[in-house]
């Protein structure tokens, strides 16, 4: 039960008021050391207060914790993941940072929704890159080494192998070396998309992202299969796992001639990670002229290759983030006898607190614009503003529902 700090009875009689503690303070006696001040007329204090009578006023009202508070209400909130507020980021709106490219393009590339060389407010939307179990696909890989063995990986400094190891450790159970897609095919190399943490909020909204990438005259549109309500996904070390499949949000997964989904990778919405198999269906759709795994000629191009596909002006990327908001609702009950006077300086005129409008004597009207939520120590912890001023009189009661999100 909340502690009642201030008198809750706004109509205390003089006799009641005199029973309250510490009512015998003599301000005139206490103020003995003030020197650089000019004193107001002391007659105001005695005569005016006696003329009005009454006890203490009340500016704070306790909140009934049982009846007026609903806590721990959880609600899923989704919104577009892009900082420009658009539902889709077109390929022509994707930019990279030259300094970041120069420093770490062997590992990943940050993608912006505006040119960071021009706009100081450009923020990273997501990162792309290439990971290879055997360390292929980078200029640091010896061009003649195609052994593709784990021994090779452990002795190399290949950034793509390092990236593969990173994702393996993060997403696979200990001891598991390979990613296996829903159709049973293993992934020894993949392109990855990592959403920026501040864009992702809590998680990627599964079933509501769609990536269209273009290479030459070929384009591929991919989604995850979470949009199908019959698909619940699986749960692994990386959280929920869905298949990346060919299809669109509107039409759902594309089914081939055998009525099967065309699986192209793995989606980890809880971590905001998408992995696209760098061989197989995904790759064959895009550009078979650049076989990234079969020829040493293209070792240095894989991340840039993916960047080229992603940032093609004809492509686009749709995605939403999702977060679970925990809310507490406070029902603020403004009773008819309460809060009918204001300390607003425009409410009065002169220095003696006279009402500005004589029509308000015995019929005051105030407006509520703010609700302050306090703790027992009178500290203002939260504040809510109404969309428009709310009239309050002795004839009106109001109920204000204040929602505080955490």
């Amino acid at each position, binding site marked *: 039960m909340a502690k009642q*700090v201030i*008198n809750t009875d*706004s109509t205390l009689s003089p006799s009641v*008021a005199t029973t*309250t503690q*510490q009512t015998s*303070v003599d*301000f005139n006696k*206490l103020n*003995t*050391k003030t020197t*650089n*001040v*000019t004193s*107001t007329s002391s007659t105001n204090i005695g005569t*005016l*207060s006696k003329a*009005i009578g009454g006890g*203490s*006023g009340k500016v704070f*009202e*306790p*909140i009934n914790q049982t009846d007026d508070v609903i806590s721990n209400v959880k609600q899923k909130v989704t919104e577009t993941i892009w900082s420009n507020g658009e539902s889709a980021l077109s390929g022509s709106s994707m930019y990279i940072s030259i300094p970041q490219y120069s420093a770490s393009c062997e590992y990943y590339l940050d993608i912006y929704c505006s040119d960071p060389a021009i706009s100081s407010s450009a923020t990273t939307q997501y990162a792309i890159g290439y990971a290879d179990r055997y360390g292929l696909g980078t200029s640091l890989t010896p061009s003649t080494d195609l052994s593709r063995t784990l021994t090779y990986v452990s002795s190399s400094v290949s950034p793509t192998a390092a990236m593969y190891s990173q994702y393996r450790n993060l997403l696979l159970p200990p001891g598991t070396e390979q990613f296996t897609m829903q159709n049973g095919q293993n992934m020894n190399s993949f392109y990855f998309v990592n959403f920026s943490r501040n864009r992702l909020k809590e998680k990627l909204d599964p079933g509501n992202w769609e990536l269209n990438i273009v290479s030459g005259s070929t384009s591929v549109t991919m989604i995850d299969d979470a949009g199908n309500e019959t698909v619940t996904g699986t749960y692994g070390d990386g959280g929920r796992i869905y298949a990346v499949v060919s299809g669109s949000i509107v039409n759902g997964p594309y089914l081939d001639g055998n009525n099967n989904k065309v699986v192209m990778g793995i989606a980890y919405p809880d971590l905001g990670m998408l992995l696209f198999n760098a061989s197989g269906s995904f790759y064959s759709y895009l550009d078979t002229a650049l076989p990234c795994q079969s020829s040493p000629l293209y070792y240095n191009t894989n991340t840039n290759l993916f960047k080229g596909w992603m940032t093609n002006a004809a492509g686009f990327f749709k995605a939403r983030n999702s977060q679970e908001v925990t809310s507490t609702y*406070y029902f603020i009950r403004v009773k008819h*006898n309460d*809060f009918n*006077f*204001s*300390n*607003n*300086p425009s*409410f009065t005129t002169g220095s*003696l*607190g*006279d009402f*500005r*409008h004589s029509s308000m*004597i*015995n019929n005051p009207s105030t*407006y*509520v*614009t*703010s*609700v*302050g939520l*306090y*703790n*027992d*120590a*009178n500290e*203002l*912890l*939260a*504040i*809510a*503003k109404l969309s*428009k*001023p709310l009239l*309050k009189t002795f004839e009106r009661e109001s109920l*204000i529902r204040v929602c505080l999100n955490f």
Partner: protein
Amino acid sequence: MSFLNNQSIICDAILTAKGRSILAKGQGAFKISMFALADDECDYRLWNPNHPLGSDYYGEAIENMPIIEASPDENQSMKYKLVSLKKSTNRIPVLSVAGATTLTFTTNGQSQTVSPQTINYQNGNSTFGYTAILSDSTVAMLEPVGTQVNFNGLPTFPEFVTDGNTESITAIGFQFKITAKGQPLSDKSATLTIIGNETGGRVTISITVKKQEVITIPDVSDNNSLTDSGII
């Protein structure tokens, strides 16, 4: 037939800086137990009791006014609280500080006692007293003196949002002692805001501490020439 206004309002709250600070402390310290209402943006001069369309339109100009979004700075919010008083009240309780609007100190350690008062209301703020907030602790010291207020959970009012090393001081009482701190570099000013814990009114006093010239006496033990000049 139009729709009825059911007077149920829904709005979202934001945490203040103080609220975030207390929330970060954890241990169940964040507990909202009271509310207050305010009308900071309202200008009651717009209330028009002579409106040609009648009493329903007296407050038309105020009611049509857009409201500014909430600020997380608790010191800039809830300035003018609504207060519950008897219907027959014909004057609003007013806080005053014995006429003081500015306090000027010229020497380090100089002090003055500020005694807030509530006029227009018998025993107003006589139970829970006043909260005094000195905006900058490097300017002066603030302490309650005289009769102590029986108020749990001191300090009770918001701290100022400050920059750098300056911070506010909060005290609760019936009168407050301000003691100047030496200012060797330049004049320095701060504000003292006093708030009625019952009637909700507030008054602000400007405090200035003048720069004091510091006389430096060299350490003669390291300089024999000064001894020769007869300083020692």
